[in-house]
């Protein structure tokens, strides 16, 4: 959405983001529009209001008026824990890269990082620039819980020191409502190797054990569930055997679904266990195998996948799937 401002108009963000000040915006000039995209949730270890951050720090800069001389500045202010800056910053106009420089610095008082991008070219009237300054770290785990995350904002001025437009790029926080406590599950396990063909030249791995560990700080909201998908030409049956929670026997996960055709044999399993922080659920996986007559043209890699329905509080551990792609099938 584009919002033209007059000299006497003060743009007020819907809510304040911690660490980001409100700046008066004045004067005609360049227009600033965040590039749309659903923001990512930012998870905090304490009971803070829910917050988000754009998955990329990117804005569209439009010049509705007369040409702007070289030297326009676009400034992003963000929490450095959340972003990997683009180096060099990317500024494009259509299919063309626009010459630009950037300077990045962090304010020790606030912890906020500022990326100040200077457009080294004239911005013609009616031109639209796309500025990409950073990408959110999608996989920061185990450092993904951000205490008191700072907000994200962008501003553009026609030249250094001049007044311009500023936008808060984060979604407003729902005041007074704490975010649910983050939770997460790590999925690991073990494999057995099976071979076929002369001199055992072909090989496939099938799962023989699954381990689910609650990462905390909060408990998982629902019982642990997962699926096991294997190539049916190599693995005929999949069942769960003994299960132990923190070393003590528990009921083995029950099969909740099955998809089996010539392409995939997938079983879906659900347990009775809601994993709290540090809980470890070990499950034995029992398989019946098949031996193909020779090489295979295609392959279904084995994959164990967490199927617990996610929510914004779920931590992205990077261990939601257990798979191997090093089979040798032809």
């Amino acid at each position, binding site marked *: 959405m584009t919002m033209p401002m007059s000299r006497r108009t003060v743009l007020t963000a819907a809510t304040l983001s911690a660490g980001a000040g409100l700046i008066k915006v004045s004067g005609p000039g360049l227009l600033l529009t965040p590039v749309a995209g659903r923001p990512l949730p930012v998870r905090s270890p304490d009971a803070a209001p829910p917050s988000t951050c754009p998955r990329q720090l990117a804005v569209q800069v439009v010049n509705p008026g007369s040409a702007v001389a070289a030297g326009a500045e676009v400034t992003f202010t963000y929490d450095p824990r959340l972003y990997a800056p683009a180096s060099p910053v990317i500024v494009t106009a259509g299919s063309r890269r626009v010459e630009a420089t950037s300077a990045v610095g962090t304010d020790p008082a606030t912890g906020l990082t500022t990326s100040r991008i200077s457009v080294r070219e004239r911005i013609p009237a009616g031109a639209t620039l796309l500025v990409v300054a950073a*990408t959110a*770290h999608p996989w920061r785990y185990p450092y993904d819980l951000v205490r008191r995350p700072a907000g994200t904002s962008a501003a553009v001025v026609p030249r250094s020191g001049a007044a311009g437009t500023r936008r808060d790029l984060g979604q407003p926080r729902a005041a007074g409502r704490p975010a649910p406590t983050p939770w997460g599950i790590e999925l690991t396990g073990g494999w057995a190797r099976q071979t076929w063909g002369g001199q055992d030249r072909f090989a496939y791995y099938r799962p*023989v054990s699954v381990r689910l560990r609650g990462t905390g700080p909060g408990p998982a909201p629902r019982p642990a569930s997962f699926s096991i*998908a294997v190539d049916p030409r190599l693995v005929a049956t999949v069942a769960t055997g003994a299960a132990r929670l923190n070393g003590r026997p528990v009921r083995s996960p029950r099969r909740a679904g099955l998809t089996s055709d010539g392409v995939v044999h997938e079983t879906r399993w659900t347990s009775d266990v809601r994993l709290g922080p540090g809980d470890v659920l070990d499950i034995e996986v029992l398989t019946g195998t098949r031996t193909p007559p020779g090489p295979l043209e295609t392959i*279904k890699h084995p994959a164990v996948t967490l199927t617990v329905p996610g929510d914004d509080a779920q931590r992205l551990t990077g261990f939601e799937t257990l798979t191997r792609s090093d089979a040798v099938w032809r």
Partner: protein
Amino acid sequence: MDEMVLKAQRWVNATYGAVPGYVACAETGTTGWPTMYSLTRALQHELGITALSDNFGPATLAKLTAYGNVGLHSANINMRTIVEAGLYCKGYSGGLLNGSFGDATQVGLQGMTQNMGVGGDSAVTDIPPKVVKALLTMDAYVKTAGGSDTIQKIQRWLNATYWGRADFFIGPCDGHFSRDVQKALVLGIQYQLGMADGTVTGSVGPATQSGLRGAAARVALGSADPGPTGFVRLFQAAMQFNGWASQWDDSAGTFTAQLAATVRRFQEFAMLPQTGAGEYPTWMSLLLSTGDPSRKGTAMDCMYPLNSRTIATVWNAGYRTVGRYLTGGTNKVLTSSEIALITDQGMSFFPIYQENGDAVRWFSYDQGVAAGRAACAAAAGFGIPAGTVIYFAVDFDAVDAEITSAIIPHFRGVADGVRAAGNPYAAGVYGCRNVCRRVSDAGFATRSFVSGMSTGYSGNLGYPLPENWAFDQIANTTLAAGSTGAVEIDNDIASGRDPGVTSVTRPRDVNDGCYTYLIWLEARAGQWRDQGHLDRPAPELVAQYLRSRVGHYLGSGQDLVFGPLDTDFVAFVDGYPGRPDAAPLRDPSNFRDVDLPHFGASYGAVLHNKISDDRTVPTLLDFGGWGGDLISALGDFLKSGQPAGNAYDYARSHIASYSNDGFFDIGDFLADVDAVCLGAQTLSDPNLPLSTMFRYYYGSVANARQRFADFFISRFGNSPGILREAGRNVCVGLADVIFMGAREKFWHDSWADDTGYALVEAVPDDIAADVARAFADVLASYVP
């Protein structure tokens, strides 16, 4: 959960759910490989491929290359949507997920391609096939937790420099060294060596090694790359990937003095010549888990126990430390006699614990506890000093998920097991680099014995040498092949962090070597019986092998007395590798050695013949042992020409004589006694091993003396009268026809000509009686 990932998952399942060969991904809003597999199959379908596969392989790439770039200017909306979905799964903006490729999608593309290092100088609106291939992986192009900025820069440089080459694919830029990064580096080196597309492999083979030996690849202080790429940068990359500061940030492409100093420290760490230059040995240690595999180490490990011949071989080859197994079968396990052999040679050893361990199913917390306890018990049994590092083996290519779920819990168990045993020993780990590193970093190993030889293991690709490495196993070889001292070893480089064990606290037992030998033979006997040869109990097989060592116990006549010899078993044992030294067996009560081949023969006689109901009547059982020897003592006296009145004194001084001046010396006497005692045990319990029985009788002076009483009781009913009468009847008795036949033949073949008596029955009775009495008195002197 990511709403856009959820939307992508729903879109791809809804769009392709009915396509034959499509596999749906779970709709959880969480990205992962299953979603990428689904997107890959979707792309294959759009390309007209009908045999859909999880793998984005050469066929898919070829089809996509024929199609061209995917993006704003390509026609297939679904393919554009697949790219947008892939962007969201990677953490980038993918716009509206409708193939429109608007600003938001282009922001994502810009960010991703730049993060990959392949962004170029123009705006990215369409992406080439290699970028699509990389998009549909879980590789990250921003730093992940623990990633290094410098490594990320190098990753991007590798991608930027080489992604245009046919065999090079865009790799991760997450700041972590990994298998794919390792491969990318080696490809870069191969390209720099001038290897052509289609010939590069990404692994260090003979051609690459040859190139690295060349002058062009040698980099040293003052070297500089002529342009944006070259061997200096590649060397710096290799240093950085292995955890050593490369000065990439300050001086990429220039070999500075600071880099040379760092190289020297690396060379010191890796036990290489400290030249400060990037020469072949250093290149190899940076690129391959073996380093230069032709390096000669000072340590080794071997499966088969060492004997006097093989230890001479390894010593002469320069080895000074040997790794050996604390438990296991006879073809593997360390023994006290082997420890003596090693330490007497001036070598040291380091203990390894491995029972199975070649698959993940052998690893769990409970199994670790058992392993810790068992290893400590075994080590304590050998008298291995407290504080020695015991290396617990992980003998398979464990991937990260297995290390997390099974290996580390196992080593936690090892630690608890060792603690429960009183915490006497330190735990080390044997395994590939990643296993060693992770187990050590988790605090469960203080030293690493690295299986660097397994260069193809994923755990050795993309991981540096662990900081606490003590031994690096780099090559397998056979020393002195074809000779009696031939031994197959693994050549290990020693860092010096573990000097090994040079002495043990357990007092040496002079019979350890013999017990080791017997146990080894018993294992062969067990194998022989497992192969279906069940006509003899294992102890008899062992005794037969002992018997076979001396020629005059062999032959058809001997078989009649001692039992038919299983010559196939003897050949089986003779051909089996790793036989320990045939060490002597010393009687602790008199410090004399028993004649083991004689024992083997006489023991067979006990098993195959019976004692007469009238114990004064000798049978073949006796002829095969003390009886035959007594006949020889008689013949020896008669041959001496001494007067008849001297018969007793002569026999008394020659029976069980310590000097080798007769035919019934102490070795024979002990063998005869043991044959009856152990033979009686075997007849009662055929499964009781000879080694166990010998350990009992020879384990103390008291037990050793007791066996003479056991012999007296077992054969002569504890009656001196029976003893003397039986002794006389051995020489001249006529009660047992079979015995008589054997005696006469023996006398005829061995003594008739030398004594003047064609038949032993013709010997005067008083002489026979005196010799028999002498025997009885000798035995009585031994009975406690």
